[in-house]
């Protein structure tokens, strides 16, 4: 058996895979958080709740409408995005002129509300959600053992992250978003419907969280608390990466997922706090984050 640093290779690659999978969720979620914060200047505390909502909507679509995984993967994020648009239109936008703290408090309250509603309706225990039949196998080689579904999650997350990056950096609507992130008033004075852009951006960010939720459903269970467990880590990821940068959010997500996975191999006791230790160090040395602009 091949060993590296006294650890069997298969164990090592297994943890790297787990790190990549966790990193996939971290990247998807912190990406949405960064896009929303960049334009709206709102720290979206409800991001974990929208992730949970994505998983629950997928489960409900299956349970009540008999919709399969692929259908849910398409429809659930759209429903979550619409929910985000509704929240932005009816409530969040009233807070833009107030101190940023209000946006944070509001989204925090919203997260508690959503979590509470689902706990009330479905209890705290998780709902099982199975991977699609064609992805239930396992790929086994000499160096690595990967359940097909987990491999799919990594690929899907990479595609979505890269697609989002391309949307923001390479398209016309992306140029509106980048410009409005710098000076939304001027962009609106040029005739761009910035209030609509804000709604779309919030909806899009929430939709990304929804996608992450559906992807996560077969791996973790669908439970009302899955979002609040996740959001703490996501905030640490965003603090490490720095709020402003899209690529930074993506890269930091995967990076911290990997670090967390590898810590499990070499020093398992620290695995749960590795990310927070890194966060503390980054805050000490580079308060704006690895990819943030110091000013």
């Amino acid at each position, binding site marked *: 058996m091949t060993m590296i640093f006294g650890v069997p290779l298969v164990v090592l690659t297994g943890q790297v895979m787990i790190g990549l999978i966790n990193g996939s969720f971290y990247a998807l979620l912190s990406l949405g958080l960064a896009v929303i914060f960049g334009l709206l200047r709102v720290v979206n505390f409800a991001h974990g709740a929208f992730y949970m909502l994505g998983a629950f909507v997928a489960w409900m679509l299956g349970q009540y409408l008999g919709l399969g995984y692929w259908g849910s993967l398409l429809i659930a994020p759209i429903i979550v995005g619409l929910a985000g648009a509704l929240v932005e239109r009816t409530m969040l936008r009233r807070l833009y002129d107030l101190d940023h703290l209000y946006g944070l408090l509001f989204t925090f309250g919203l997260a508690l509300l959503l979590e509470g509603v689902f706990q009330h309706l479905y209890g705290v225990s998780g709902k099982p959600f199975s991977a699609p039949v064609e992805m239930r196998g396992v790929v086994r080689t000499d160096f690595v053992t990967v359940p097909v579904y987990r491999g799919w999650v990594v690929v899907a997350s990479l595609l979505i992250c890269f697609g989002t990056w391309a949307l923001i950096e390479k398209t*016309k609507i992306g*140029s*509106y978003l*980048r*410009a409005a*992130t*710098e*000076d939304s*008033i*001027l*962009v*609106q*004075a*040029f*005739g*761009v*419907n*910035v*209030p609509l852009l804000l709604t779309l951006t919030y909806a899009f960010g929430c939709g990304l969280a929804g996608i992450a939720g559906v992807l996560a459903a077969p791996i973790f269970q669908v439970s009302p608390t899955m979002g609040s467990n996740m959001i703490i880590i996501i905030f640490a990821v965003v603090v490490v990466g720095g709020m402003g940068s899209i690529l930074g959010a993506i890269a930091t997500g995967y990076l911290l997922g990997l670090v967390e996975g590898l810590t499990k191999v070499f020093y398992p006791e620290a695995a749960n706090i590795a990310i927070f230790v890194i966060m503390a160090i980054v805050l000490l040395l580079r308060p704006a984050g690895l990819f943030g602009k110091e000013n």
Partner: protein
Amino acid sequence: MNDTCVTTREARGSQQLKVRGLEAWYRESQALYGVDLDVYPGETVSLLGRNGVGKTTTLRSLMGIVRKRTGTVEFDQQSILRLPLHRVARTGIGFVPEERGIFASLNVEENLMLPPLVARNGKEMSLDEIYTLFPNLLERRYSPGTKLSGGEQQMLAIARILRTGVSLILLDEPTEGLAPVIVNRIGEMLRALKAHGLSVLLVEQNFRFAARIADHFYVMDQGEIIDSFAVAELPGRREALNKALGV
């Protein structure tokens, strides 16, 4: 006002922009105390005044960036005071801010293409025409907008408004901080705009620059218009002007 001036202005038709009793506030502090001014079609009007008298605030209030306002603002006979900010541009008014507003995260071409077209009236310039007029922008079209020199950024800020087909441009101190050669280039540009039939409301501290281009002048002090005269009356006004501008 003397007669030649009045007939000249009237010969242009009715006011394109008509402002009466415009007052504006930043929160509780009032910055404009009743501004009256007109821009006739195709006219270049210069708004003069010392630092901090409210020239920028006037432009920002006309555009709708400063929201707390009262008075009358009519553009092509339509009241624009209550329009949402993004609807004002679509009536045909373009804004070139004092700090130029070039976006660092957009390259030169993206900066150029950013403002949506507001009209297809033959006044809009195509990308090709802009690049022919400003070869530097073509050369550097993939550099970040803020990597351009100050003069190039000013050209870019004006050029991107020309692309949209607006019929009135609000231009805030385009020559500020630029070398004399570049100031001349911008002067040529403004004359080209005029020949093209565009109206310009030009805020300037550089009076000699404004005097070469404008058809009509307003002088501002402490949030009010204190004087208004045509270019023909300029020679007789020098002294009073120098006093008002504190030159």
